[in-house]
């Protein structure tokens, strides 16, 4: 099993310029921020559970951009109904990555229920085109490549270990600056 920060590094390396990433509150946004602070990243620093529907809204109206929703098992559980919504809206450019450490690591590591619940199977049942459950870095790289070459919505459920990054900084951008920087990045990607 890989650490979450390792998984985020692999994901960040796979990103292309026009990919848009929306990341959930807590450590995932902080780890993405220290790994690759791109203008096409939207760090949702609160509103737990809303990343997937936020990314869905973005994906449906920006079909030329790939949209990556990056969240944890706790936030995915909080809005499991959105899995059905994503599947029914079926944006081809939607990649849903869940970094599943089976815990609320950001608040002290209390267990979630994903040691018993397979979110990838749920996504498949809802109608995601593909939902890969991956256990190591090589599988993650392959799944990321496949997700780029095939239509979505797709899910990558990456089982990751609990390995807090010591002294990890907070996202230093103000939410309004995150919004404007992201919005400008999207505008600049539009066909002229």
């Amino acid at each position, binding site marked *: 099993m890989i650490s979450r920060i390792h998984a985020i590094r692999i994901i960040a390396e796979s990103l292309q310029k026009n990919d848009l990433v929306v990341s959930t509150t807590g450590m995932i946004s902080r780890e993405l921020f220290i790994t690759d602070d791109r203008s096409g990243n939207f760090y949702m*620093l609160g509103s737990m559970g809303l990343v997937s529907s936020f990314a869905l809204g973005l994906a449906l109206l920006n079909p030329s951009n790939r949209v990556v929703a990056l969240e944890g098992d706790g936030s995915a559980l909080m809005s499991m109904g959105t899995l059905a919504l994503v599947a029914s809206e079926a944006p081809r450019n939607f990649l849903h990555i869940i970094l599943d450490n089976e815990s609320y690591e950001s*608040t*002290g590591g209390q267990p979630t229920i994903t040691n018993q619940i397979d979110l990838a199977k749920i996504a498949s049942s809802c109608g995601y085109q593909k939902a890969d459950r991956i256990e190591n870095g090589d599988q993650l790289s392959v799944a990321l490549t496949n997700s780029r070459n095939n239509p979505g919505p797709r899910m990558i459920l990456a089982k990751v270990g609990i390995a807090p990054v010591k002294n990890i900084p907070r996202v230093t951008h103000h939410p309004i600056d995150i919004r404007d920087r992201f919005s400008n990045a999207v505008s600049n990607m539009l066909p002229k």
Partner: protein
Amino acid sequence: MSDSGEHVLVDWPIAVYEELTSLEVSQVSFVPDAGLTQLINLCNADPAIHTIPLTSEEEGIALSAGAWLGGVRSAVLMQSSGVGNIVNMLSLSRTCRFPLFILVTMRGESGEVNEWQVPMGKGAPTILDVSGVNVRRAEKEDQVARLVGQAARTAFTCGKREAVLISQSVIGVKSFNK
């Protein structure tokens, strides 16, 4: 949900746990918060308490009502942000007069480092109030268990909806791993 890695052991969770057990609370549901870690751990370790990690705070409102119908007293634990998730579901408790005891750890108060926590930090007390939940605020550590005892007793014996809000100053900014 708060962003923390470090936890300093404090006394109020033990006193709150003792209040809850003395009132025979046997179901505790929660979306965790760093400030609730110690209390959750105490409840998890007690075989007489059924703990439930919620997928969303709103489930806790209904779990509590269902448990009461089955003769069981419960407590629902959440961070102030979670108060926003329960608003509509409080209609269940209010309309059917189900007893409800909620313990809320506050974010978005003085010392907050994440502005995203501020709206619910400001809004939680008012939102609970207008939703028919009586609010008691613990601003100092030695108030917490006493207020929990009062609020939970009122909830269970008078069939009321009661919340105790534990101020961020009690939980400590230290535990927020800035």
